[in-house]
Structures are given as structure tokens and as C-alpha cells.
């Protein structure tokens, strides 16, 4: 069996929060050696965010959030207030194929690690900045936080219930989207480098990456001069196309009802006829109110009421099994518990359980692809802060143990 695709590629990882770490997670999944530069004086934001095993924040190493997106990476803890720490970072940069950060434009330059400087010691490096607004343009210094990028991108204006204000995506969607586009860009640049020997710099704007996901909205405007209307879960060419309520979970969590929904979609008349049969109302297939797409769109409220009445007294699993057996596109609106117990993901061994120094073996999401020839794997659990400082300093970076101890005593390795 061959080596993983990015075996032998080393990544000097200055990223933090989510977009950057999601990018380098892909590189780790594909076999790269990813070394995260961290510092105790300003730890990664996600090390301080929930969830925590006991529901209490008492360690920088227990966050499920951090531990999800930093699997398979190494942690090197440096305090840049000390010039010796910068020297260690320079040694890592010299020995890396990729240098990556997701600071706002200009921040890395201020730290002294801008591309112009990096290029001097490592001319063929592939370097990328995944900033909120990009490296150029009048807003290049603006601050961007994950959740604000969704409305900024235009996705919010398109998303929402009919007649209601714009809605969010419910998570910081632009972050992982930028991260995975960044991973694609880095590997493409490595491909070019393997062919030509040339490295290069990549300027990436999270905002722009997100706008590549909404071409239909943008083209409605550029082709027809119109702002698209928000229309909930409905679709102009498919009906039914929505979410339908099933029986709630019996237990509440923090006094909140865990309601359960199923998504059902009929792209054509034949699938609608199958749905009508499956819910015990085969006559509806030929009912003039519902027989054609145009009719179903015209009577969509009534259509949805009929489907809802059927799902409301049933459990999600029953609805999905029944409709899939009938050849209807239906599926659970999965929450974290549902996913965690999902028989399909379990059978496919999607979830990974690696021993972590402080939280032990936990269920984490794994790799969304399988490669037959060069299988990657989640090599290790996420690192505790500074877990690999000694290993990287004395191994790759060529310091003696005595030097490492001296640097630690000074506070350069925090």
C-alpha cells in the first residue's frame, strides 16, 4: 500500500479559531505533518469554548471543539515575546513546505513572518493567508468573525421563511468553507511546485469563498436585476420540498424540547405518486390539486398539511424507512445524538476514537472520503497545548535538550 498523498509534506501552521484549523485538518487527513504554533499567553479561542467533558471549563485541553478540528496535528508552544521563540519559528519555516495563517491581512507581517521575509529563507514555500476580507481592497483591515461572514456573504439575505427577516445558517458556515477551499488551493499549489519547482503565495478571502456558494442568487440579480425572495424550505421546481414534524424525543434537555423533523422531497410526479401511496392516500396522485408540479405548487399549503398530518403521529425512523422503501427522497433532520448513533455512519466507520491525554477516547468526526490506494487516517487525537514542543525542538529543529530547558526556563517555550 502506498504512502498517504501528502506524506513528507510539512506544514507550519499559524492558524487559529476555525477556518485555518479546518484547512490544516484536511492536510493532516491527507498525511501531511502539521505543526501548530501555539502560545499559552494567547491560546486558540476554541481551547476555551465548550463542550467540556464535565460541563466545566477547567483546562485548555478539554474542549470538544478544539479536539475535533485539531486531530492528527502537533502542538509547538512558543512565546514570541522572546526573540529565541521567533528563531525557533524561523527554523520551522525553513523546514516546511507550507506556511499558513488566518490572521487578518497584515498581522503576520507585523509579527515579522510576512511572505517577503519567509521567501528569503524558503524560496519555494507555498504560503497562504485565509483572511476574512482578503489581502487587498479598502476593507482589508476589517475584522471578521465567523458568524458575521454568513450575512456578509449574501447567504442570509437569501435564507429565511417567507415574509420573515433574513436568517443565518445556524453556524459559522463561511469558516469551514474557506478552510476546505484553502486546502484545495494549497494542494493545487503543491502540485504546481512538484511539476515546476516553483512555490507561491495565495491570497484567500473567506468572504469571496462564501460567495462562490450562491451563484443562483447573484445571477438572479445580474441577469434580471432582482433580489431573490426568501422562501423557507420550498423549491420552485419540486413539491413537496420541506421539513415535516414527527414525534418529539421523550426527554427534554435543559428544559428544551428536542423536536424531530424529517425532510421529504418529490422532484417529479412519479415520486409524488409513490409518496401518496406510501402514506396511504394513493388517490392523491391523480387528484387535480396535486397531480402536476404546477398544481402542487399552487396548492402547496394543502399539500404540506396532508404530509404533516401523516408524519406528526410517527417517529422519524419509521417515516424514513417507509418512504425510502417506497423510493421517496426522505431523511431525518439529524441532530448530534442522531448522528452519533447513526447506523450508517457507524457501519462506515466514519467516527474515530483516539486516546487523548486529558479526555481519553471520545467520539469524533473523521474523514469524509475513502481513498483506495493511499488511505489516510486520523493518526492521533488533538494535542494538548505544547504536547510536541520537546519532540519538535530537539528533533526537527535541532536544539539540544539542554538548550530546550534553558529556553523553557526563560519563558520562550510557554
Amino acid at each position, binding site marked *: 500500500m502506498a*504512502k498517504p498523498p501528502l506524506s513528507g509534506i510539512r506544514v507550519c501552521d499559524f492558524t487559529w479559531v*476555525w477556518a485555518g484549523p479546518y484547512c490544516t485538518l484536511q492536510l493532516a487527513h*491527507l498525511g501531511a505533518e502539521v505543526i501548530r504554533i501555539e502560545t499559552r499567553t494567547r491560546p486558540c479561542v476554541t481551547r476555551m469554548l*465548550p463542550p*467540556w467533558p464535565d460541563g466545566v471549563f477547567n483546562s485548555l485541553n478539554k474542549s*470538544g*471543539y478544539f479536539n*475535533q478540528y485539531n486531530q492528527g496535528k502537533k502542538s509547538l508552544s512558543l512565546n514570541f515575546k522572546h526573540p529565541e521563540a521567533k528563531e525557533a519559528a524561523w527554523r520551522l519555516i525553513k523546514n516546511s513546505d507550507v506556511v499558513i495563517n488566518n490572521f487578518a491581512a497584515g498581522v503576520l507581517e507585523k509579527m515579522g513572518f510576512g511572505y517577503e521575509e519567509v521567501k528569503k529563507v524558503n524560496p519555494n514555500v507555498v504560503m*497562504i493567508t485565509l483572511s476574512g476580507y482578503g489581502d487587498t481592497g479598502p476593507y482589508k483591515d*476589517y*475584522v471578521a468573525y465567523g*458568524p458575521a461572514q454568513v*450575512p456578509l456573504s449574501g*447567504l*442570509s439575505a*437569501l435564507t429565511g*421563511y417567507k415574509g420573515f427577516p*433574513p*436568517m*443565518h445558517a445556524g*453556524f459559522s458556515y463561511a469558516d*469551514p468553507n474557506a478552510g*476546505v*477551499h484553502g486546502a*484545495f488551493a494549497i494542494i*493545487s499549489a503543491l*502540485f504546481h511546485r*512538484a*511539476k515546476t519547482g516553483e512555490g507561491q503565495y495565495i491570497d484567500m478571502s473567506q468572504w*469571496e469563498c462564501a460567495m462562490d456558494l*450562491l451563484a*443562483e*442568487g447573484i*445571477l438572479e*440579480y*445580474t*441577469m*434580471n436585476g432582482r*433580489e431573490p425572495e426568501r422562501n423557507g*424550505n420550498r423549491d420552485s421546481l419540486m413539491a413537496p420540498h*420541506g421539513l415535516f414534524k414527527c414525534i418529539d424525543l421523550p426527554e427534554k*434537555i435543559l428544559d*428544551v424540547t428536542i423536536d424531530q*423533523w424529517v425532510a421529504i422531497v418529490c*422532484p417529479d410526479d412519479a*415520486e409524488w405518486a409513490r409518496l401518496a401511496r406510501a402514506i396511504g392516500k394513493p388517490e392523491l396522485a391523480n387528484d387535480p390539486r396535486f397531480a402536476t408540479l404546477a398544481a402542487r405548487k399552487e396548492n402547496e399549503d394543502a399539500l404540506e398539511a396532508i404530509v404533516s398530518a401523516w408524519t406528526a403521529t410517527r417517529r422519524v425512523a419509521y417515516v424514513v424507512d417507509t418512504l*425510502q422503501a417506497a423510493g421517496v*427522497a426522505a*431523511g431525518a433532520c439529524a441532530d*448530534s445524538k442522531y448522528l452519533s448513533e447513526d447506523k*450508517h*455512519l457507524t*457501519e462506515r466507520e466514519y467516527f474515530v476514537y483516539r486516546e487523548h491525554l486529558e479526555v481519553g477516547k471520545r*467520539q469524533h468526526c473523521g*474523514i469524509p*472520503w*475513502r*481513498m483506495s*490506494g*493511499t488511505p489516510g487516517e486520523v493518526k492521533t487525537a488533538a494535542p494538548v497545548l505544547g504536547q510536541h514542543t520537546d519532540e519538535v525542538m530537539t528533533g526537527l529543529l535541532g536544539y539540544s535538550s539542554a538548550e530546550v530547558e534553558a529556553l523553557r526556563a526563560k519563558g520562550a517555550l510557554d
Partner: protein
Amino acid sequence: MAGALSSLKIVEVGEMVSAPYCSKLLADMGAEVVKIERPKVGDRARTRGPFPGDQPNPETSGLFLYLNTNKRGVTLDITQPEGFEILEKLVAGADILIHNVTPPEMDRVGLTYARMQRANPKLIMTSILPFGLTGPYRNYRAEDLTIWCAGGVCVLNGGGPEHPELPPLKTAGHQAGYQGGVHGATATVAAAFAQLRDGTGQHIEVSVQESIASILEMTFEYWPYMKMIATRLGQKPLQPVETMQCKDGYIYLCCIEEHQWRNFVEIMGNPEWAEMEIFKDRLVRALNWDALRPMLEEWVSQQTVLDLYRKAQAKRVPFAPVSTMGDLLNSEHLKARGFFVEIAQPVAGTHKYPGAPLKFARTPWEIRMPAPTLGQHNAEIFGKLGMSEARLDELKRKGVI
């Protein structure tokens, strides 16, 4: 200078978004792509629009035109044995086959990696599938909405605790397809990198459900770590992070760190109520959101979007406008960066499209040609395979091309 991936030759059998977006990402960086569509009907994205002047026309669908830039197009019915043989010939001359033919359809037409590898031993084949190629949901009927839900993301969005009757809400557009596409492109280009090194190909199987489950922020881990479930009905952990209405549109308030809140209070002119104990930190502001919201709504409703956005950013507070499509097209920042690109296509005319997701210093992202009309390159591509005009006519009569 050519694009970073200009040496790669790709065959795509793609419908709608996932496989087409995957190969578009590679094509826009220089790869040569031949897209295979079903004879007569073509890719379903041709029916989706938007259409110029609202006139449905398979040659002017905005979604199709966007997703298929830089590709040459042929029509081929791979469900007929003669069509499948031609697919094998195309694949023999390519580095990569990217497809989203569903598993039941793969079984029906005999599309397996082993068979494709006989045509091209070094082939990379990327199969982007709703639930992957194994497991109990392998053959599930799926549409973008059902996959978005299956990945665990739709449950997070919706009307909130004030509107429990409103269902979980999909994010606009075909987001499951885009995520399957970009995760697939990442694995594919990595396999191409390995192919350079090892001289071998391989089969990549991408699950769109798993691609979505991979981007759930911290929400998935709430169950394994704390036995809690993130839902749209829960309270936000901190506030304000919320959309609000200004005089002329909507703005997104975003005070995640305490200094951002303090700076926002200053922008509001230090109102007395902001000093109240019940608003003293981000956690209690979330608990007392019912009280805080009307205060903020009243002040924000008297502001204009751009003015508040600029004032906030001047104090390093990460507010953002809720951009309309018009806002995006008119943005001075995006204009300065040259984000939108004009693409001329003979039937649809010239329009602005979303452009490069990334700017490479050396190797360009560029639009070399617009999306193909249905079967536009049949003569050229099939001619290169050595097929005579008479043979092409015969295949046309049989409905193979």
C-alpha cells in the same frame, strides 16, 4: 502562465452541483475538462435557472452556466453499451474521472473502478455520492435538502425559541452539493499529487453526508462530551450575535468578546441602561436577551447599515451588513479586488458571475471559455477518438450521442 492544474485531463459525468462544482474548481485552475451529459435533456442544472428574462431555456440556466465554466461538453448515453465503450475511450486518455452517478445507477450501468482501471490503469476516479458507496443508506433516494439534513446542519438553523412551530431551515441554494464538491476536489487534487509521485491512480469515494458532518462547528461534540443536543430552540450562549433592522436594511451585530461590547456601547453614546447589572457580561446578556433586545432594536432602527458598519469596524467590532445581491455587486471592496467576472455565452449573453475563491500569485485562476451548449464539442471530442462522421450519425440515430 498557465493555471496550476493545466496538465490534468478530466472527464466528468456530473449532474446538478456536487461533481460539477468539484471539476469546476479544477477547471478554473487550468485543468482540461470534458463534461458528459445525457443526450437531449442534459444536466438537470439546465432546468434550474435563473434564466435571463425569466425565459426557461436549457442553454441559459444561470446555475448551469456558473458550474460548468472552462469545460467542453459532449452528449453520451452511458447506459447503452456503445455509450459506455465511448466513456471508456475518453477515460483512457484522461487522468481523472469525476462523477456523481448514484450507487444504484452505478450498479445498473456497471460503472466500477475495476472496470475503469482496465481502460486506464493509472486512473483516479472520484465518486461523489450522497451517502458513500457502502452502508445501509447506500441506495437511499436523496436530494440536496435531504442530504443537508442528514449531515446534521439543518437542525441548527431556524426561528429560535420564539417560533418553535417554524421548521428547521435550510440554507439557501444547493449547499450539500457545494460541500460534496469542494471536499471531493481536495481529495482529488491530493490523489493527483500522489499520482505524480507514485505513478498510480486510485478510487476516491466521497460521502456528502460525511462532508457536512465534518463542518458542524462544536455542535456535534456536545453529544459525546456532554450528552447535550444543539437545536434551534435553545438559547444562544452569548449575546448580542443577531440580525437587526436599520433604517435602510439589516445589519448583523456581533459582540463575541467583551471589548467589542464595550466599544459598541460607546458607539451607542453610552446609554444608561447599558450599565445595568443584567447586561454586565456576554453570558448574562444572553440570559436577559428578552430585555436587551428591544433596547438594541430601538437604537439600531435609527441607524443606516453602512454608517453603523463603518463605525463598528473603526473600533474593531466585527459587525457586518446583511448583504443583498445588489450590495455585493456594488461593493467598493469587491470591485477593487475584481471579484466578479463577466462571462459572455452565445445564447445567454454577457453577465457577471462570482469569480475566483482564491488568488494565486503565480498561476492564474481564469475563465478561458464559458459553459458548453448541449453537445457543443461532440464533433471535436469524438472526432479525436477516431470516430467517422458516418459512425457519429449512426450513434445519433440510436440516441447514444
